[in-house]
């Protein structure tokens, strides 16, 4: 076993128990995510691994050796450490930052220079950056450096404490790809603390869910989604993801509404407005004569352009987001929810408009996911019983 933690306890002097009987075994090459709300003890547990904190009781063994017998300074030089605030030294160049640990280990200058260049190539940044200062880099670039700094001395184990918490979603995603790629390619073992379930599900090979200092569940992402151990885990996963996780072969075509309000581009705006009014909708899909999806039209577009434009084709949007009718719900639902559309048009293989998926249709799926499964029928009866009482 590469890293094993047995009966870890951490009690602060005020009597607050931060970690309570924590047991975990980590194999080499695993990507372990500690997830939980703030105060769940995940960061505390992680910081005990490199002895930034001392456990009250229990043992941590790295490669079979008890870490409390090791010199903490030597131990930390063997373990990569990435923190949320990046922690690049502002008075050192990127080169110096990357080679901090090699320098502490007294490598030769030539070897450090070579390593710095290897490392910066690893994160796909230009080598000119080596002689710049951290303040000249963007936040995402800085954290890339923060990541390779933890790899520069060939550390096998890397601890990451919410490293991407302060980054915007796009930068975060690219950094997640980066660490996942590096971890598998270089065979590193990573302990990653996060409160973002999406992040944990994307990255981890093993997820450790914690609450109030206790382990709630240890499982692979798939297992956690399929069989959340208790209500806390379920809530942490959230409804959106339970929909995704539902082992469903339902296609978009099966849940879509077929009666769609659509219009052709050559029609007048007046007609479009009348159609919206009659059908009580605020937007129309635009198709050509053959029924192929061309775009969409909003009530705002009519409102703004009623005086200047005449036909639907003049003001419609061409960049319409759509899904295919034969695609699986579980593959598309996330995209629909994330983009926040009220509804999404559905096309067939010939790009012909065949229907529409509304958020209301998704409600049914969520409902099924939560209450529709056989082992959850009890809860459903409870729910109806309560409803009956209320009446």
């Amino acid at each position, binding site marked *: 076993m590469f890293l094993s933690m047995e009966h870890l306890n951490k009690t602060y002097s005020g009597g607050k128990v931060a970690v309570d009987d924590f047991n975990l075994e980590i194999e080499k090459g695993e990507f372990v995510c500690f997830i939980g709300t703030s105060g769940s003890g995940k960061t505390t547990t992680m910081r005990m691994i*490199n002895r*930034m904190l001392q456990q009250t009781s229990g043992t941590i063994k790295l490669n079979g050796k008890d870490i409390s017998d090791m010199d903490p*300074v*030597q*131990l*930390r*030089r*063997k373990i990569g*450490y990435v*923190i*949320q*605030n*990046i*922690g*690049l*030294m*502002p*008075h050192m160049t990127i080169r110096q930052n990357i080679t*901090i*640990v090699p320098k*502490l280990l007294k490598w030769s200058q030539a070897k450090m220079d070579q390593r710095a260049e290897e490392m910066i190539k690893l994160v796909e940044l230009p080598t000119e950056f080596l002689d710049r200062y951290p*303040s000249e880099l963007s936040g995402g670039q800085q954290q890339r450096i923060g990541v390779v*700094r933890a790899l520069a001395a060939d550390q096998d184990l890397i*601890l990451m404490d919410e490293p991407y918490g302060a980054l915007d979603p796009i930068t975060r995603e690219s950094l997640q790809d980066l660490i996942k790629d590096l971890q598998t390619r270089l065979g590193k073992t990573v302990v990653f603390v996060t409160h973002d379930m999406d992040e944990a599900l994307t990255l981890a090979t093993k997820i450790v869910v914690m609450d109030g200092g206790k382990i709630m569940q240890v499982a692979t992402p798939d297992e956690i989604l399929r069989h959340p151990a208790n209500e806390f885990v379920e809530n942490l996963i959230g409804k959106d993801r339970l929909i995704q996780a539902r082992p469903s072969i339902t296609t978009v075509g099966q849940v879509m509404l077929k009666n769609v309000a659509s219009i052709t581009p050559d029609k007048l705006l007046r007609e479009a407005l009348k159609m919206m009014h009659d059908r009580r909708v605020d937007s129309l899909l635009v198709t050509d004569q053959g029924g192929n999806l061309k775009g969409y039209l909003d009530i705002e577009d009519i409102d703004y352009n009623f005086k200047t434009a005449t036909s639907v084709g003049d003001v419609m949007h061409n960049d319409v987001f759509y899904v295919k009718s034969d695609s699986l719900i579980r593959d598309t639902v996330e995209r629909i929810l994330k983009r926040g559309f009220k509804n999404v048009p559905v096309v067939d293989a010939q790009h012909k408009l065949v229907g529409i998926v509304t958020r209301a249709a998704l409600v049914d799926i969520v409902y099924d996911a939560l209450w529709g499964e056989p082992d959850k029928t009890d809860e459903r009866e409870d729910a109806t019983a309560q409803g009956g009482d209320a009446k």
Partner: protein
Amino acid sequence: MAHLNLWEQLLYYYQHNGVYVLSQFSRHFLISVYGVLIAAIVGIPIGIFIAHHGKLSGAVIGIANVIQTIPSLAMLSIIMIGLGLGVNTVIVTVFLYALLPIIKNTDTGMRNVNPSLLDAGKGMGMTRLQLLRLVELPLSMSVIMAGLRNALVLAIGITAIGTFVGAGGLGDIIIRGTNATNGSAIILAGALPTALMAIILDVALAWVEKKVDPTA
């Protein structure tokens, strides 16, 4: 002499006593620098220590503050009782006054180092000494320099009073001027270089301060 105006008299004084003024100037400068240097050698470690031991910092800075409130002439006289007349008394006085700005700025500089940098440094395996040498000191250097700059400007003023205990320096020339009838030119001959020294050192150290600021 009476037919010359003030500035002509000043020029005349410098022409005839140039070497004397220069020697007093360097004496004045050295007394100030020695006092500040000793204060730095003592004060910077104290500042580092109290920055790491938060509870002490209030008490230590309090004591340094009390020293600062004693009028310099009184302080000079009190120390004279112990050390007698001469240059050592002035150096000790300068030392005591320079302590506060140096300790205070070192403390502030060290405390202002971003704690996440200390966490990162420690987590990467720096010893306490390495953390101090590689992270804390470089990052607080410009604030510490600002303290030294304050201390040095203060020291030049105190050294001027040192003439009363027979330490020499530009104060000697000023006192000579105040004792002479129509001595305005002599007063200026001493006061102008004193002011000039303070200004030049202030500007020079401000430049150094900027130079050592790692984030600039």
